[in-house]
C-alpha cells in the first residue's frame, strides 16, 4: 500500500531493491530512498502493530518508536547482507511485545478471582487500551469481528498469526524471532486457528439464539 503523498518519488526508485535503497539512504543521505522504503513497508509494519495492540494511539507510538530505532541504529546495527524489512520487523515485534508485557505486568498485580461476580480481575477491567478495542478505524464489520477475535487470542498465538499474515514469514523465521522451536510455532498457529474457529462458532450461536 503506497502513501498518498508519494507522487514526488521518481519512478526509478520503485524499481530498486530494498538493499539498494538502504544503501542510498545510508551512504548518500538520499531522503527519497528512505521515503520509498516507507512507502513499501509502512502498511505491513503498522498493520502488524495495530493488530497486536488494537489501539490507534498506542500503535502510532510504537510505530514511531520502531522507526526512531531504525533511523538511529541503521548505521550501527543493520548489516546490509540481511533483509532490511526482516530487521525492521524484528524491531517492531520487540517494541510491540515489550508494550504488551508492560501492560500485563501492570495489571498482574491483582489478578484475583471474585467469587460474587464469578469473574477474575481481567474481566472486571475496563476495555480501554486492551486488545479487541479497535477505535478510530473504520473497518467493515467482518474485519472488525476478526480483529476482535484475534485480539482475544493469547499473545503468543496472535504473534504467530500476524507474523505469518503480514510478513509472510516462514515458520522457521517465526520460531527464531519468538525463540521457540518450529514445532512450537506450528502448534501455536494450529491452536490459534482452532481458537478462532471456536470464537466464530460461539458468535454464530449467539446470533442464532438472538434471532
Amino acid at each position, binding site marked *: 500500500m503506497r*502513501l498518498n503523498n508519494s507522487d514526488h518519488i521518481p519512478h526509478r526508485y520503485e524499481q530498486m531493491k530494498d538493499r539498494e535503497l538502504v544503501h542510498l*539512504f545510508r551512504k548518500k543521505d538520499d531522503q527519497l530512498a*528512505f521515503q520509498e522504503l516507507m512507502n513499501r513497508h509502512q502498511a505491513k509494519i503498522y498493520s502488524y502493530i*495495530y493488530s497486536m495492540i488494537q489501539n490507534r494511539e498506542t500503535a502510532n507510538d510504537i510505530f*514511531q518508536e520502531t522507526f526512531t530505532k531504525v533511523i538511529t541504529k541503521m548505521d550501527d546495527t543493520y548489516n546490509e547482507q540481511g533483509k532490511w524489512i526482516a530487521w525492521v520487523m524484528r524491531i517492531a515485534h520487540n517494541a510491540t511485545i515489550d508494550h504488551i508485557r508492560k501492560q500485563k505486568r501492570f495489571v498482574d498485580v491483582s489478578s484475583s478471582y471474585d467469587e460474587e461476580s464469578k469473574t477474575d480481575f481481567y474481566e472486571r477491567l475496563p476495555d480501554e487500551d486492551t486488545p479487541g478495542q479497535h477505535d478510530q478505524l473504520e473497518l467493515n464489520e467482518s474485519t472488525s469481528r476478526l480483529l476482535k477475535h484475534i485480539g482475544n487470542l493469547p499473545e503468543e498465538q496472535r504473534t504467530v498469526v500476524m507474523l505469518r499474515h503480514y510478513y509472510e514469514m516462514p515458520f522457521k523465521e517465526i520460531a527464531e524471532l519468538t525463540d521457540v522451536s518450529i514445532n512450537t510455532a506450528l502448534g501455536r498457529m494450529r491452536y490459534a486457528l482452532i481458537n478462532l*474457529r471456536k470464537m466464530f462458532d460461539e458468535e454464530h450461536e449467539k446470533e442464532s439464539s438472538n434471532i
Partner: protein
Amino acid sequence: MSIKKTDSISYLFKEMDPSEKVEFERLLRKNENLLIEVESLRNISNRIGHLPEISAPDCVIQSICEQASEKNKSSKLVRSKPFYFATAALLSIGFMAGALLIESDESASNTGSASVGSVGSTQATSTNNPAGTTADREITPWVDENNILHYTGVESERSDSLLENSYRRLTPVTNPSQNSSYQRNLHFTGSRQ
C-alpha cells in the same frame, strides 16, 4: 507415516517438502477426519487472509521522514568533525607559535639584564632577566639553568663597567696543558683579589 498435529498446518501453509506433501495428500484421501480438520483450518486461515493492510497516519509518517532527514544532517556533522578538530588544532598551534615568537622578540630587545661567562661554557649568552631591571635595585648575581652567570638590577652602563672590572680581575690561563683535565670545565675562574 504417522500424523503429527502440526502436519495440517505445515500442509496448509505450504511448508512441506514435495515428498511429504504427496504422502500427506494420500493420508487425506484415506482419513476423513483429517480432511475435515484441514478444511476447517483452511477456512479460518482464508478469513485471516482477508485482513486488510492498515496504513499509518500521514502525520506519523511525515514526522518519521523529518526525523530521518534531521539524522542525516547531524551525521554529516559527525562525519566532518575530524576536519574541524584538525583545523582547530592547526590554528591553536599557529597561535601558540606566534605568541612564543613575539615573546622571544621582546626578550631579545630587553636590556635590563646582563649575562656573562659561564661555568661549563665559553660563550656569554644573553637571556631573560627574571627579576626585572630597576636602577635602584641591588646588584644580585644569579645563575640560570645553563650555568650562565647573570646580574640582576643593573643598568646597561653600570653592567658594562662591572663587566670590565670583572674581566680585569680574571687571570688568563698561561699553561693550558697543565690543567688539561679541567680545560673544558673551568674558564674565567681565576681572579686578582
